[in-house]
């Protein structure tokens, strides 16, 4: 049972955007997937209600990168409960730790395998994020 209705992907890479969208429609066709090209756009979009149930955040983006956006969102009262999943190419342990520290709910690296991505997505959408404590 998919709980999320709307998700937001924040990523500047158009190929990754497309890839992600394909995976989403494969896993949960009814799921609404919005795209923002960087952290700044993401904030603008979130401001338009309704807010997303889940945010997938890339790290390396122009204008406002993933960390900045993450931190900003965590500080905002109305959005601090939205789970943010860091979704990036880097599998640097430093980045992982940093993300966790800044309040990301999850961290996973972009796989090159479509099937893997779908499995991961599926699992994530099933998760009960209320268990998570990702407040700063």
């Amino acid at each position, binding site marked *: 049972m998919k709980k999320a209705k709307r998700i937001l992907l924040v990523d500047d890479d158009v190929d990754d955007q497309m890839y992600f969208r394909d995976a989403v429609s494969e896993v949960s066709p009814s799921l609404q997937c919005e795209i923002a090209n960087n952290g700044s756009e993401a904030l603008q979009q979130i401001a338009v209600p309704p807010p997303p149930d889940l945010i997938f955040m890339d790290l390396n983006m122009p204008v406002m990168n993933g960390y900045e956006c993450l931190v900003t969102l965590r500080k905002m009262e109305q959005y601090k409960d939205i789970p943010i999943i860091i979704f990036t190419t880097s599998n640097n*342990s430093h980045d992982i730790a940093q993300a966790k520290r800044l309040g990301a709910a999850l961290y996973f690296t972009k796989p090159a395998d*479509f099937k893997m991505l779908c499995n991961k997505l599926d699992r994530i959408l099933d998760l009960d994020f209320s268990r998570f404590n990702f407040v700063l």
Partner: protein
Amino acid sequence: MTIRPTGAAFQHLAFIGLILLLMGLSFISYRRIIRLNSDIELVNHTNLVKEKLEKALSYIKDAETGQRGFLLTRDSSFFAPYVGAKENAVKLIEQVEILTDDNKPQQQNARNLRVLALKRFDILALSLALADSHSPATAGNLAEGKKTMDLIRNLVAQMQQVENDLLKQREQASRDSFAITPVYLLAFSVLAIMMLAFAYSKVRDETLLRYSAEDSRAKIEELETRSRLAIDAAELGTFDWDLKKQEFNSSQRVLRIFGFNGHPSTRHQDLLDRFHPDDRGVRNKAVEDSFAKGTLAYEARIIWPDASVHWVSVFGKILHSETGEPQRMYGIVMDITRQKTILAELTESETRFRLLADSMPQLIWTSDASGNMVYFNRAVFEYAGLDHKKINNDRWFNIVHPDDKEENLQKWAQAIQSGVEFIFEHRLLNRNGEYRWQLSRALPQRDEEGKIQGWVGTSTDIHEQKNSMSALEKLVRDRTRSLEEANFNLEKTIGELKVSNAELESFNYVASHDLQEPLRKIIAFTGRILDKDGASFSELTRDYFNRVMAAAVRMRRLIDAFLSYSRTTNTNAVFEPTDLNAIVREVRIELQESPDQKPFRIICGKLPVVQAIPFQMHQLFDNLIENAIKYSRPGIDPEINISAEKVSGSEVHGANPELTYWKISVADNGIGFDQQYAEKIFELFQRLHGKSTFEGTGIGLAICKKVMHNHKGFISATGTVGTGSVFNVYLPVGSPEA
């Protein structure tokens, strides 16, 4: 010859004189008082006489009056004055007679007066008697009576005059006495007081003297005690020789020193007999000289009854009489045998030293504690070609090379002051006018208390060595310099390398990362193509796409591995306690999650917690286990055994034999390898199999080796073709710092 009285005698005389004076004065005063008294008495006496005369006259007059009255009135009451008057008058006159015994004429007058008085009374009586008889004799009586009365009156007046004159005289005398006597008394008193004061002061002086005398006595007693103690402590014998009476007294100790066991009857001569025959003369001469000098001092040997020889030291002081003749000698005797023995030994020892020193080729010298030269051995003189005079004391530094002289003196002064061993190389001028290098050393000589008594030094000829040494030194110096230069260049190069390395690293990282991007997409979208339309492709097209995929995947793996490798050169990683069990677990989980993973089994024993870089440990086990799985035998599921034990460094090739290591073995049941390649497989990009048989990058084991290098450990492998391989990882126990 005038005899001068001494002070005391003079005092006595003065005292006696004063006493006599006092006595004289008191006698005179006494006499004067008596005189005064008698003068007063005399005055009174005269007044008394006068009084009595008057009274007597008065009585006679009374009698007359009485008679007259009676004759006139025949009243018997006129008898009364008459009756007693005669007796009284006569009595009075008799008294006057007695009183004027000191004035014979007056006394005669008084006698005459008595006679006259009696006559008068007789006449009066007759008159009275005749009164009754109415005889004519009465007129004649009266006339006689009157005549007598006139005579009486005249006589009394005369007597009174005499007495008055006497009175005047005596009164004057008494006045004089009154004047003078107090003066005498005053003089007497004053003198008495003076004498008293004088006596008092003398007594006080006496008392003070007595106190100070007692005080002095106490001090003397104390001094005596102290000197006695000192004499005892120093074990001195004392003697007291009366030169006049030729009496010799000595303390018991003197006798003991001379070897007598306290014989009471030991005589002076007995002591003298003990003197060594050869030293008797010394003693006698010393004694003779002492009479003139006033002091005695000598040392001589004495021989005890047991034939042992002892040395004594004698000191004495002579007390002369007032005439300058020696009267008494007081002295001390000391047994100095021990000192003499020690002195002899010392002299002998010194002689031996000199013999020794003179026989040595080195220059040997000694100085006192202040650094002044005291002794040079023969070699010094021979070397320098100088004699005593020229090289004595301060002139020794004249044979030092001028360039070395200043430092020489300075270092020597330093040594003297600090007490630290003196070492110095300098050039000394020899007899041929050549300067030769010497190594001079001196050590301080300390006494029992650690105080420096002097220095002993040697100078050894090092001329030859110095010359060859300097060649050596030059060589060393040059080498050192070039070494320093090389070092400097090395450091520079290292610096440059570091910079270059850092650049390379970041380049590596960025390149790898940025290279991954497009590659990932190639793989991802090619995959999508195959997913979406793969079924509708021809066999060939599908094959082509698969090859593209495979190539991309290979490239990806290569870049991943490369990235991984470049990361392990990062030396900034922090060592932390790392649980290897957890690492293995993580790796297992990751591999299990990997798609298309072969089934595998890991049997893991208890692994230790080590101080390591967790990420690199992860890389290590990841690579080893992946290899084990990859190089499994066909048809046989890979089984990996991981175990750990402690071993000594001596068992590890290239390890520090003193350290202990954890030996972690990763053993598999795969295809194994030929042992001759055991080293080669760890080299970068070296593979034993083509990529068609086993895909791989050839980086994995190189990464493992790098990781072990970072942890100051080792990795080795043993393989048996067809059976399996064992990879041994050695980690030092304890914390290997980066």
